[in-house]
């Protein structure tokens, strides 16, 4: 059933802008991106919007709909409360024009992730990765890089000054994915804490709430990485056990070095 919908779309660029009202006809089953396309077709041919294929997998059409960071292609109009629908660009990133933002911050952070580094003691035979180890990181591989988690994260959304030393949730799951890989040889915990700002996250879970792929970013990546940092720096029992292990290994190696018949 067709009806008229009032859209309030932010229009402008880095020099300024404002919400502009458009009325468009919409049909049952349509999504917000359909209404934006109708706005382009009927009222504003120069309205800038980034999108690709309307299937919720390219992560291009991220915007803020009635203040919620969401994918425009996956937000049905029927799921929104009645009344005008407000659409604004992602608030955390610089605006280029209208609904299009400059998300290059994220690609800079992506370049800072140390690549997968196989353990030096890699056996000659090919490394076999078992299903339970695959599944753990598979969740993180679902990320479509829509940047909604980065947008909603208050650490950089409300504090631009934190951007140089904070990677954000999307990259915490990338660091976690690599750190949890059974054959990765790098110790990423302290770098993540010291240079990527893991400690800035206060686990308020907004990243998890907005993720269109349903990735449990906080529970399965950020908190486990915080716990790994605790292992390395703050856990009294782990430190004690490590010291004992190191001493035991030292004793064993010195016994071995005395030759056969001593160990």
């Amino acid at each position, binding site marked *: 059933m067709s009806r008229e919908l009032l859209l309030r779309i932010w229009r402008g660029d880095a020099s300024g802008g404002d919400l502009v009202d458009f009325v468009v006809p919409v049909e049952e089953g349509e999504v917000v991106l359909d209404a934006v396309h109708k706005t382009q077709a009927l009222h504003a041919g120069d309205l800038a919007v980034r999108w690709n294929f309307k299937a919720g997998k390219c992560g291009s059409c991220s915007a803020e709909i009635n203040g919620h960071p969401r994918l425009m292609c996956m937000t049905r109009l029927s799921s929104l409360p009645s009344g005008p629908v407000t659409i604004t660009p992602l608030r955390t990133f610089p605006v280029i024009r209208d609904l299009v933002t400059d998300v290059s911050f994220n690609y800079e952070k992506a370049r800072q992730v140390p690549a997968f580094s196989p353990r030096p003691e890699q056996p000659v035979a090919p490394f076999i990765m078992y299903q339970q180890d695959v599944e753990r990181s598979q969740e993180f591989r679902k990320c479509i890089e829509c940047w909604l988690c980065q947008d909603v994260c208050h650490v950089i959304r409300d504090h631009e000054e934190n951007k140089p030393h904070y990677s954000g949730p999307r990259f915490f799951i990338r660091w976690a994915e690599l750190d949890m890989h059974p054959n990765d040889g790098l110790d990423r915990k302290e770098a993540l804490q010291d240079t990527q700002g893991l400690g800035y996250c206060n686990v308020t879970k907004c990243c998890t*709430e907005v993720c269109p792929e349903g990735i449990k970013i906080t529970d399965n990546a950020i908190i486990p990485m915080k716990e790994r940092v605790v292992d390395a720096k703050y856990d009294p029992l782990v430190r004690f056990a490590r010291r004992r292990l190191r001493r035991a290994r030292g004793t064993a190696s010195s016994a071995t070095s005395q030759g056969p018949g001593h160990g």
Partner: protein
Amino acid sequence: MTAPSVPTAAPAPRARAAIAARTLRTDNWRKEPTITAAVLLSFVAYATWAAFKNADYYKPPYLSPFYSPCMASICGHARAGATVVHPPMVGLFGPWWAISPAIIVLIIPLGFRFTCYYYRKAYYRSIWRSPAACAVQEPHARYRGESKFPLIIQNAHRWFFYLGLLLNGILTYDAVEAFHFPSGWGHAGFGTLMLVVNAVLLWAYSLSCHACRHIIGGRLKHFSRHPVRFRLWGIVSKWNARHMEIAWVSLVFVALTDLYVRLVASGWVTDPRFF
């Protein structure tokens, strides 16, 4: 061929979209933080009052969880004439400890809950408003999170987890002792039920926490090499998904248990005996 023109200066950093509103959310985003703050602050107020009351926390065989283990010698005075003597640590703090003995022990459960990942979310949102709700601008001019003092102390959660397990053991002992009436073993009243359920909920809260999940299996790189720990990790992960609910239920129930013991000890309520 003409060389492409090269900009002589770096482009100025682009500005964000000029949107003055703190948020454009139209839903009732204030509701959740308001309810959370109300429950949390109510608990803090009740726990503070109960901890400093220093009376009506013991009625054989029930001992309030806020006062267990009762480690000051004044606990012994509180129980003079009681035929049941528990728990075993009475008198660790001598007569010089003049204030309520609850203060000695409450630091552990309060520290455990204060540093808990779920409660962090709850009070950061509801009380500190950092942020109050997703995509709602926080009111603070600066933010360093848990990277610097004082909030870097949140990393002590693991310490409180270990101590909390010890405390759970003692509260389980109390729950068993709640079957030990002055007339002998094998009886149970409504207070026994309260103490048993309280102990079960506290174990559920501790074992479903993120630190436990990590210790059980989360710290492993190879799940495949540790099938038993992987299986346990899977079980704890399922409980962990319900950690928020368990946290609330156990928080409210521990206060209700204290209240019940208090009402029985002060004579306001007569404890119904089941057998």
